[in-house]
């Protein structure tokens, strides 16, 4: 796994999360910008998945539990699309935009945990 890429994904997820939460709180319904930001996070996670699968072939192995890593990664990939679906079911509500933000912030936390599992092992 690539250190800077993982940090960049987490940063994008935080930015998308804050954008959606603020947009939702000021009354914006889900729109191209907020839905797009959420889907961008999903796309980056797919890139992360490809990198994680390829990494061991280049001698880049996780220092922690590989199983735990993939549980986080797969869950994180599923979150943004589910949030988008959930938001589109009630398009007329600004709270649906907040839902997008909550999901992408959760992704950011999960990416941070993935980074820890791959690179830093305290135990």
């Amino acid at each position, binding site marked *: 796994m690539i250190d800077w890429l993982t940090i960049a994904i987490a940063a994008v997820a935080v930015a998308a999360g804050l954008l959606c939460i603020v947009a939702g709180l000021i009354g914006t319904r889900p729109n191209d910008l907020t839905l797009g930001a959420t889907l961008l996070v999903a796309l980056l996670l797919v890139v992360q998945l490809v990198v994680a699968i390829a990494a061991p072939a280049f001698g880049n192995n996780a220092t922690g539990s590989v199983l735990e890593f993939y549980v986080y990664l797969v869950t994180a990939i599923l979150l943004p699309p589910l949030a988008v679906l959930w938001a589109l079911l009630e398009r007329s509500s600004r709270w649906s935009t907040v839902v997008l933000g909550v999901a992408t912030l*959760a992704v950011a936390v999960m990416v941070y945990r993935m980074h820890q599992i791959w690179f830093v092992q305290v135990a």
Partner: protein
Amino acid sequence: MSTSDSNRRSQGLGRVLIILYGLLALAATGRSIFQLLDDFDKAPIAYSLSALAAVIYIVATIALLAPGELWGRVALITISFELVGVLVVGTLSIFDPVLFPAKTVWSFYGMGYAFVPLVLPVLGLLWLRRTRVPILNNRGLTDAAL
């Protein structure tokens, strides 16, 4: 009218609560599965509690999503239980760390989860009160129409 009751619980702000509950259910389930598999003997009470919390969060998420008065009651019970759980376990984990050597979602009032486990049940209970069946709360009807 159970249909209107159901719709109101999972609409608007309710969606934000449901996704937060869903995420907490996910986090608690994940953590407890790894704890139970890895080293149950190290801290049986803490780990059993993690598993119990996980189940409670799952049921609460479903109860908020599901239609009808009965599920409303289930939501009320599980969310109240969470509030009691986080307060009791949070307090115990501070005064009796020996009993809780390992982290649970409720340790230190949910500090490891940005205190979401402490705030969420309060919001959940307020939300349930607001979306209660109209007959019981006429003012709540206009409030909830927000």
